[in-house]
C-alpha cells in the first residue's frame, strides 16, 4: 500500500458549453452538423497527492472547479486528460438523500440506498439497527419518505451515511439543513472518522473548517491550482486574496482611501477601538505568547 490515497497527474476536465445542450433531431437536420458550442476547462493540469489518513481541503470561489475535481475523484466524471489513481474503498457524499424514492418507506429506502452505497443485503441488514437508532425517527420508518419533514429526511440520510466505514471519504459541502444538534452530530462524525484514519477530501467555503480539520489544502481558481500546501497557509492566502479583492472593489466603486477600513467597521461608532496590544506576564507588549497566559489591552475613545 502506497502512502498516498489519491494521486492526480495533470488532471484536466473539459466541458462543451452549448446554449441548446440537447439539440433535437430537427435542428440537426436543418443546420447540418451539430454545433459543439465552445469549450470550457473546468479543471486544467491539476497535479496533487493526498496522503493516506490525511484530510484534504478544496477551496475556491464558485465555479473554480472544486466540485468538478471531487466528481472526477469520485469517478462520476471521466477526466479529459491526465490520470488519477484512487487507492482505497471510496465513499462519496455529494448530496442529501438524492437516492431516496418518495413512495418507498424509510426502511425500503435504507435498503435501496445501502445498495447504491455499494453494500450487500446482509451488510445493510447488519447495519439496520444502528441506522434506525441514529436516525431516531421512530414509527415513521415504515411510512413513505415523501411525508417526512425535511429534518427527518436529513436524519435518515445521514444515518445511512454513518453506517459506512469508508477508507476515503469525499464530501461536497452540503449547506446545513438540520438543526444545531444535528449539525454537531455531523461534525462529530467527521472528526471521529478523521481520528480513525479515514482519508477525507472536503470541498468547503468555510475557512474555519479548513483550518480546524484539514492537513493540506488546494486553492482552485478558474480550474487551475492557485496554491497547494499546508491548510493554514492556503487558508491565509485565500483569505488575503479575498480581502484584497474587496478593497479593490471598494476603491473602484467608492474611491475613498479608507473605504476598506470603513467597510470592516462594526457597531454604531460611539466607542472606537483604535489599537489592540497583547501583553506578556510583566505587562510588556508581546505579540506572540506561545503557551503562556497574557493580557490584551485595547485603547478606546
Amino acid at each position: 500500500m502506497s502512502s498516498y490515497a489519491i494521486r492526480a497527474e495533470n488532471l484536466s476536465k473539459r466541458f462543451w458549453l452549448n446554449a441548446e445542450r440537447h439539440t433535437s433531431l430537427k435542428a440537426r437536420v436543418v443546420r447540418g452538423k451539430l454545433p459543439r458550442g465552445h469549450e470550457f476547462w473546468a479543471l486544467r493540469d491539476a497535479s496533487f497527492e493526498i496522503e493516506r489518513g490525511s484530510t484534504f481541503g478544496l477551496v475556491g470561489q464558485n465555479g473554480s472547479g472544486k466540485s468538478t475535481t471531487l466528481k472526477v475523484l469520485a469517478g462520476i466524471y471521466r477526466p479529459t486528460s491526465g490520470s488519477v489513481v484512487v487507492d482505497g474503498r471510496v465513499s462519496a457524499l455529494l448530496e442529501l438523500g438524492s437516492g431516496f424514492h418518495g413512495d418507498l418507506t424509510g426502511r425500503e429506502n435504507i435498503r435501496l440506498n445501502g445498495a447504491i452505497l455499494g453494500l450487500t443485503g446482509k451488510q445493510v441488514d447488519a447495519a439496520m439497527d444502528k441506522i434506525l437508532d441514529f436516525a431516531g425517527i421512530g414509527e415513521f420508518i415504515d411510512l413513505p419518505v415523501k411525508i417526512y419533514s425535511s429534518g427527518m429526511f436529513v436524519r435518515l440520510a445521514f444515518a445511512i451515511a454513518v453506517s459506512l466505514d469508508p477508507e476515503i471519504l469525499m464530501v461536497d459541502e452540503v449547506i446545513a439543513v438540520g438543526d444545531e444538534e444535528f449539525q454537531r452530530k455531523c461534525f462529530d462524525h467527521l472528526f471521529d472518522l478523521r481520528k480513525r484514519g479515514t482519508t477525507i477530501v472536503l470541498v468547503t467555503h468555510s475557512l474555519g473548517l479548513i483550518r480546524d480539520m484539514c492537513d493540506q489544502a488546494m486553492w482552485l481558481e478558474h480550474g487551475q491550482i492557485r496554491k497547494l500546501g499546508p491548510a493554514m497557509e492556503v487558508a491565509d492566502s485565500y483569505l488575503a486574496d479575498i480581502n484584497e479583492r474587496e478593497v479593490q472593489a471598494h476603491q473602484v466603486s467608492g474611491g475613498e482611501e479608507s473605504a476598506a477600513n470603513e467597510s470592516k467597521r462594526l457597531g454604531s461608532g460611539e466607542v472606537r477601538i483604535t489599537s489592540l496590544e497583547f501583553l506578556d506576564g510583566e505587562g510588556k507588549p508581546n505579540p506572540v505568547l506561545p503557551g503562556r497566559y497574557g493580557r490584551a489591552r485595547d485603547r478606546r475613545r
Partner: protein
Amino acid sequence: MPCGVGLTYGRMSIAARPRSSIWAYRFLIQNFAQRDLKSRFKGTLLGWAWSLMVPLATLTTYSLVFSVFFHSTAPNFGNGRTGFFAVWLLVGLIPWNFFLITILISMPTLLANGTLLQKVYFPSYVPVLGAALAILVQTLIECCILAVVLLVFGNIGPTWLLFPVWLALFVVFVTALALSLAIVNIHVRDLAQMVNVALTLLFFLTPIIYQISLVPTVWHGIPFQELVRLSPITDFVTSLRQLAYDLQEPDLTAWLQLLAWTAGAVALAYFVYQRYGLDIGESV
C-alpha cells in the same frame, strides 16, 4: 452538512472508477428492480393485481375483436386438439408485452435517475437492467399462467424444456436493445417519440394477432411476408409458439437466427455503451 447518498466501491489502483463486471452490481440492479416493482402500483387499490389485469384486458380485447368479429382462427394445439384463439394469442402477446414494456420503461429511466447519476458513480446500465428485471418478474408470472392454461388443455410436451433457453436469449436480446435505446435517448431526445411510433407499426408487422400465412407474399411488388419474417420479434414469437403451442422443436437454423439477433443486440449495446454510455453523469 455532509450526508446522504454516496458510493462505496472496491479497492482499485488504476483510476477513479472501479473496473467491475455487471455481476458486481447485481445487488444494486436487484434493488432498482425492487424499487420499480414497489413504486409502480403503490397507492392503487388493486396493487399487484394490476400487473395481470392489463395484459388480461389486452388479451380479452384482441380475442373479442379478432376471434369473434373478424373470425380469425388459431392453428390446432400440438396435441391435436382444435386450436383456441385466446390461448394462441396469449403465447404471442407475452413476449411482445415484455419487449414493448421493457423498451418503453427503459428509455426514460436514465433521465429519471439523472440526479442520482450526477451524484454517485454507478454504470449507466444499472438502472436499465433494474427496470428490465422488474418487468421480467411480471412476464414470468404471465408465463406461469400460460403454463397452467396449456396444462388445462393438456398441451404439454418435452419441447417445454427448451423454454429456458429461448427465454435467456430473448431477455438478453430485449435488454441489450433497451439499453442501447436508453443511452442514445440521452443524446437525441427525439428517439423516444420515434420509437413510440415504430413500436405500434412493429406490433402489426409481427404475426402476433394473425398467422403469418395471412400476409400476402407479394403485394404491389412489395414482398410483405418476407419483410415480416425479417423482424427479430417475428423470429422470437414464432419460435416460442413452436415450442409451447405447437410442441415442435424449432430447427437449428431458427436457433442460430435467435442467437445471431441476440449477439447483434449485445454487440450494439456494447458499442453504444462504450461510445456514449460512460459520461451519462454529465449528459443528463
